[in-house]
């Protein structure tokens, strides 16, 4: 059941969005996900998930997707 790196990153981004954005507006939730990923993910991980957003579009949840768009803009 070994996930490949990309699917693992997608799963992690979704998990963060599910856990961190509670009780917030969507914009606040997106900000929190952006902040968390920026603080804790290595640059190659951010680059990899952002470079493959289209491929993962169906798997990413909406908050994670919006957050990754912002992260991509900062790379």
């Amino acid at each position, binding site marked *: *059941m*070994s*996930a*490949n*790196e990309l699917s*693992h*990153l997608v*799963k*992690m981004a979704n*998990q*963060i969005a*599910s*856990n*961190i954005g*509670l*009780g917030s507006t969507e914009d606040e939730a997106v900000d929190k996900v952006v902040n*968390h990923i920026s*603080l*804790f*993910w*290595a*640059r*190659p*991980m951010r680059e990899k998930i952002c470079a493959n957003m289209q491929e993962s579009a169906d798997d990413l949840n909406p908050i994670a997707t919006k957050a990754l768009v912002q992260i991509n803009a900062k790379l």
Partner: protein
Amino acid sequence: MLQRSDSVNPDTSGLSSVGTGTVAAPMIFDPRTDIDPDKDYGTPAPTNDPTPVGELISLRIDGKEVRVPQGTSVLRAAAMADINIPKLCATDSLEAFGSCRLCLVQIEGRRGYPASCTTPAEEGMVVKTQNDKVAKLRRNIMEMYISDHPLDCLTCSANGDCELQDMAGVVGLRNVRYGYEGDNHLDAEKDESNPYFTFDPSKCIVCSRCVRACEETQGTFALTISSRGFESKVSPGQDQPFMDSECVSCGACVQACPTATLSEKSIIDKGQPEHSVITTCAYCGVGCAFKADMKGDEVVRMTPWKGGKANRGHSCVKGRFAFGYATHTDRITTPMIRDSIDEPWRKVSYEEAFTFAASRIKGIQKEFGRNAVGGITSSRCTNEETYLVQKLVRAAFGNNNVDTCARVCHSPTGFGLKATFGESAGTQTFDSVEKTDVMMVIGANPTDAHPVFGSRMKKRLREGAELIVVDPRSIDLVSGPHVKANHHLQLLPGTNVAFINAMAHVIIDEGLESTKSIQERCDVESFETWKAFISDKRHSPEETEKYSGIPAAELRAAARLYATANNAAIYYGLGVTEHSQGSSMVMGIANLAMLTDNIGREGVGVNPLRGQNNVQGSCDMGSFPHELPGYRHISGDEVRTQFEKAWNVSLDPEPGYRITNMLDAAVEGTYKGLYVQGEDIAQSDPNTHHVEQALKNLDCLIVQDIFLNETAKFAHVFLPGSSFLEKDGTFTNAERRISPVRKVMEPLGGLSDWEVTLGLSKALGYEMNYNHPSEIMDEIASLTPTFTRVSYERLDKEGSLQWPCNDETPDGTPIMHIEEYTRGKGNFALTEYVATEEKVTKRFPMLLTTGRILSQYNVGAQTRRTENSSWHGEDVLEIHPHDAEDRGIVTGDKISLASRAGDTQLRALVTKRMQPGVVYTTFHHPESGANIITTDNSDWATNCPEYKVTAVQVNKVLNTEDASEWQAQFAEFTKEQLAYLDN
């Protein structure tokens, strides 16, 4: 006013001696604190001393004025004045017993000869400890003891360390009028069943010290005195051999024995030690202080040190006895290299190994980029060594790809406590448990994994503290001798956050929160938001019962008990952190403590029980890829610049890879080099197939270890490691206590671990210059605000220090967040329950959870190479009788255990410890393949693996000759790799 002496070994001869030199304030002996840990005062200090601070009662002993706290025995008061009354059944680790009658004295105005151990000192009392009358009585008593004792002193193993022999000398016994021919016990049979100590009843004086040590110190109650009168004898269990009894081999009885009756086999074999060195245990996160008793450079015994503030003179079967691994023949003491893992190893010099490793790492970085390499620091090595490895990665590799094995155990603790309290550490001392009224133990098994602290918990429970256990499994604390949990909340694995939310919901619902402390100490806005969240009906125990399995009424009762206690403390372990919501659960625990005002004083708090000896330290030392030492984010310009100046290098401001991300990238082929110090990821990390695939993909794996561990079988460079006995340094335990580790023997490989890292760094082109680990600590102190007043000099003087230790708290910080939280106001975090993706199905209908056992430690590399395997020679699968019956399984049957990740085979143990639908195993033996089963699910915030929840199926194996496919491959691979060593 009395002043506290700053010495741990004060001169106890002067009761009111005045300080000398330039010290302005007089140094006055304080009998509360100025005790010599190497002296036996006969009875313990009074626990509930009613004497106001600064006031003592005064009495005269042999004409000398002695001032002591009320409740002190005459025996202890005399010992404090260096008046040593003869004694046999008394020792200051145990309550007075009054059986040997050797310590009798005369007290003016009283009749007879009371035992000084059971007589409390009183104001104005006048005591005579020596005169002809008491001397005669003592000789008479000794005469009776010696009339039934083998007089083989010269060849006895206790010769030189026998209190009976000493007392015979002290009382002046010259002859035995009764003769030696009468009935006696001299032919009593020895019990040598325990691998570490011998019980020789022929030498027993039935003083009950062993029985009391088993009860009072260890809390196991395995020993008793059976029969009466002349037939009285020490009996393990019900007159069973020690190994067949409930004995947990902690050794407290051996230490308490005043004769050779209970003796370490190592002392019987080798004789008494000739010198001792105080050091810190290298097993669990309790961090017990030990005297390494030595003959030359050989350890012959480890004796827990009474002056150790974490263990107060107690130990467990690992720390006391399982040190033989350090000199095991499996130790690898020569550097080795090879081009590929399909080749034999070549033994080389350190220089050649360093050059080979450095050239490979540089080659990888040239071809695959700077980020294609990284390192893993060890939670078993010292703070100084860990600091150096992260420094090497950041400075010499030029990236932040450094992580530590705390990633896979307590990383959610760091995240969760920082987010709520502002500091990534537990809040208390271990001593704090003595003031606790209600303990809540969540996902921890202290009597197995933190046994010395488990014993201290049991002692407090016997004194009347109440207990809530939250665990899918019925751990020993749930029900044991004189300990019974008020509530055992037996939740289903994976529902922790639902549980903790329900606890908080009840407290709000029933108005049990501490409004005053919330208003004064917490961020009120965060509280109001959280209150609205937690008040929702979905968090009520009546709702959560549906998936957690905890009956609502039971949970409500537990919540009331916790919330209304004077002092309630939470103790937790990896059953909290190793989940997909590990960080949420830690924050939920912190919320609960803030909600009920259970932070900031003795007896309360949030106490993570750390698995390995230096988990706390490795995290403190900047082992995480996003943080520099002292938990400061790498992106902070001010902090990073400070390190850049000190290290004379430019640092990457971006966080690096965590272990799990390193392995993912390795499988993808973008990550190619790894330096691993003292960590065995091939055995300890989840989803072994994935880990092995990653390790095989590396072009340069450098392993520094004392054994060829599972990871080293995939390595290209092997650098010999050194055990804790072979180096100087410090460990930091679960209570933030920094304790010294002292070298008692030269490193078998010639270099200590810190010296090996220096060599590798130099070869990489980044030279670090230190002559001794104390200089590394000086650098840590200069760069880490919570360590500024820590130095080896101070540690030698104080024994240990709890960080933060700086100008504001020069003596350290036993209890945190007293006035305010480190972050200012306590933050209530929202913790929605999100079910794990790991779900039971028809194919995998049960849940596996994993844990540890008393006699083995972590991956077992150390304890498997000792006699500890006599207790646990293989990992077994614990399964409930209903599930076992459904599958036709009985204890001892070979079973297959399969998950979505893989499958393995183990033997079954059918036990009601488990609840139906949940199975359990340990991961101490590599061939068990427990981590073949576990998946790569992880905590949302930290990637801490979800070891505690795996959907599995269990079936009986019909052909017991078979092994699982992985086990067969493992056996073959191990055979092949061991053959590569033989050149």
